[in-house]
């Protein structure tokens, strides 16, 4: 019997395939139930007009009890958006990925939240502690204990 996480992920995948992703979000790769990739862009008026980012979701076997590890992919074809809650290594400081995570959320709900986080951005800048964080950041953003300040996203 497949684990709870893979059964739930299969359902989410079926849903995405049947109904499609929300606007501006595309599923790039979901070959297994451990890592999924999405492309994400902000539609309409925003500071990120014309920019396309790549999101990586990593699931452990306790999903959805435990939150997915979500980050922007840095690579030759992708960069992290310049945003006060996004570190230059792609890690995202968002409370719904940490202590505000709930199993009622889903992969596409997280995508939509991050999309609106980008859309509502007023100034393109890195977090103030970016350099310090990036120097010591763990590989998996879930191992970071972010201090969420300002609006919870």
């Amino acid at each position, binding site marked *: 019997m497949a684990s*709870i996480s893979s*059964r739930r992920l299969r359902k989410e995948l079926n849903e995405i395939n049947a109904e499609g992703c929300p606007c501006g979000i595309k599923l790039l790769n979901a070959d297994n139930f451990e890592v999924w990739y999405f492309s994400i862009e902000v539609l309409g008026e925003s500071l990120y007009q014309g920019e396309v980012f790549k999101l990586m979701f990593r699931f452990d076997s306790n999903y*959805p*009890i435990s939150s997915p590890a979500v980050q922007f992919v840095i690579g030759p074809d992708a960069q992290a958006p310049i945003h006060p809650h996004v570190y230059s290594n792609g890690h995202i400081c968002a409370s719904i990925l*940490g*202590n*505000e*995570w709930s199993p*009622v959320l889903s992969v596409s709900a997280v995508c939509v939240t991050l999309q609106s986080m980008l859309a509502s951005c007023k100034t393109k800048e890195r977090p103030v502690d970016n350099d310090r964080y990036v120097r010591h950041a763990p590989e998996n953003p879930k191992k970071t204990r972010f201090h969420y300040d300002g609006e919870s996203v």
Partner: protein
Amino acid sequence: MAQVPQRRIPTINDLKVKLCYICREEERYDAPEVPPRAWTHPCNCTLIAHEACLLQWIQSSQQNRSRAANALKCPQCGTAYVLDSKNPLLLRLMNAGNKALSTMGKFVTMFGLTFVVFSLGTGMYLISTAYGAYALREFVGKEMFDILLTDDPSNWPWHSFINLPLIPLALTVSRLPMDIGISPIVPVLLAWPTSSPVNSRDPGVLDLWKHSTSLSKRGSHPALPNWPPPPLLLGLFIYPVVRSGYRALRTRFSRWILNSQAEQGNGPIQRVVFALNDDGPFRIRIGANLEDPAAERQPRADGQEPGGAEDAAANQGDVDALPDEAAVAAENTIRVSGTSLGRLIGGALIIPRISSLMGSFLLRMSKHSYILRRLLAVRPPLPFGMVPPALPPWYDEKTWRAMSSAKRLGVVGVMGLNVMWKGTYAWAECDPVWWRNSLGLGLFTVAKDCLHLLHLWLTKRELESRRVKNRSFEGVDIRELDLINPASAL
């Protein structure tokens, strides 16, 4: 569901399709799962879940400190989940006890840290105070120390607990390269002369003194009226003036000594620049007036090594040949770390001992010179057990009562000014060990600076007189050499 004949509020069992918000699995009412799994609707909105899924979620979030706040409420409507469990009084008591213990643990941690910091601070304070007492004793002499302070800290006046621990600090600061202008002697001279003598706990001694004759008749050398200089004058005016005057003189003198030598030098090093740091060590910058830049670097590199080696060996010489400003900065940094730091502090803390030794030296010399005796204002020790009072002996209760209140005020004012200026009567009556120690320390400083200057001068002369010894080709195969006249060689 509204078609149900009886008007009752529907429950979870009335749903056609149940969808768990956690695992996203469905169960239709006409296709029940086998074996059946319990469902629950814990809140006020439409979310429902398998009871097992929800319990797992609650349990896992409760184990995470940052998520525990959200564990027991609906993510959609925020309604608090109500758990019904075997939670007897005993378990609740134990939980409460556990919580209380961990709170107490935090207090213990904080208390422990405070204690460690506090005891370290206290230790430093005690050591500094003990050192300060030692330094004062070295500086003012045993006789005056026994009158002003004594070995028993319970006799000490209140200000000694501020003044004494600051002494090692002030000594160290005074040795730092920057010129703060604070001399360690000044606070000692300002605080102690005005301090009243520690009351002897034996009243008989005081009585003895009161009935004795005036102390000024004692002693074979009547003291000059204003000699030694009043401590306030010495600390506030004479000392700073002498100090800055001496420094200016020293700077000019050493510049003269070292520069006049530099013009005579005609070795490979053509130009020697002395950077004179007012209080700190001298830095010698050496540049060569040579065309070839590669050759220019050579004497510099050579010059650096002996300078550094001698610096370590000699007491005061920080003689370095420095090629550029960056090296100056680097050297400045190095001076305050490692062995230099120990040297700085050690050198500072030995000052009272040196000053005491120099004072005894002056005292011994004064046996052979009347002028020196007058200069040092040496006095024989007080009779054993005698403690002079803070105020002059002509003061007593009888004259005091005879005065009018205006006159009393005047007398008190004059006496206060007198104490401020000259120190207490006790201070003035004692053998002024502090005075000869101050003079001794001054002599020592001059001697030390002369030695330092000599060291600098010798180092500089060594650098300027440097030549590389020229050798013949003895031992080299002559065939390898391209000689002008090969026939003349063997």
